[in-house]
């Protein structure tokens, strides 16, 4: 199927690749169908593009690429609507936003995808996790002065 997007122009996707978010996302409740696009210039990033609203897309990353010790506890009630018993079968992504000059990751409300069933949901993880975790340029290691 062909969809129009404001960021990427017209793109072709397989109907089988569409992800179904039965409840949409908070703030985007009417967006129930999404396509996960790879960014051709950037392997650290993907884009979740709404197939029904051409202007709506969310930058997403694998959280552990940026936060190696990212651990989440997801209540079972959040996984049941995905027809998923085992959180190990899930693909976990977090949404990128910008606050001021910094890009941030929403570690509190990751996106869980049941890859086989092609379903997805934004869940609220337990615990004190930041909703806008800042990403910064890596500092070069300090050198000892002579």
């Amino acid at each position, binding site marked *: 199927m062909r969809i129009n997007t404001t960021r990427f122009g017209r793109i072709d996707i397989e109907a089988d690749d569409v992800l179904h978010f039965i409840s949409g996302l908070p703030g985007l409740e009417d967006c129930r169908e999404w396509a996960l696009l790879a960014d051709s210039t950037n392997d650290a*990033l993907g884009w979740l593009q709404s197939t029904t609203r051409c202007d709506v897309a969310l930058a997403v990353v694998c959280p552990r690429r*940026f936060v190696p010790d990212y651990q*989440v*506890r997801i209540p079972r009630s959040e996984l049941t609507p995905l027809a998923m018993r085992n959180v190990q079968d899930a693909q*976990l992504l977090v949404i*990128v936003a910008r606050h001021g000059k910094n890009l941030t990751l929403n570690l509190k409300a990751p996106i869980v995808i049941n890859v086989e069933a092609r379903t997805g949901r*934004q869940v609220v993880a337990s615990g004190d996790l930041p*909703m806008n975790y800042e990403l910064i340029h890596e500092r070069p290691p300090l050198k000892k002065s002579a």
Partner: protein
Amino acid sequence: MLVLSRQRDESIMIGDNIVVTIVDIRGDKVRLGINAPSEVPVHRQEVYEAIQRENLRASRLDPDETRDIGKLAGRRPMPGGDGPRR
């Protein structure tokens, strides 16, 4: 807004499959128990609203703004979640 008075252990039904029960009342804090189908998300309102705002902010992001993301790292060690891990 519909306002109802309830005492401890009393309940309210919303629709035909959501039940809210007053589990405990202590001082100015009320503990609520919620029985709802698993596909209905239930959250503290301020958390839900914060996620809404964050999603809307994120939906305005343009690919140009994310070009350098591969060069970035987390600012600090992440505060922990709790319980068993994924």
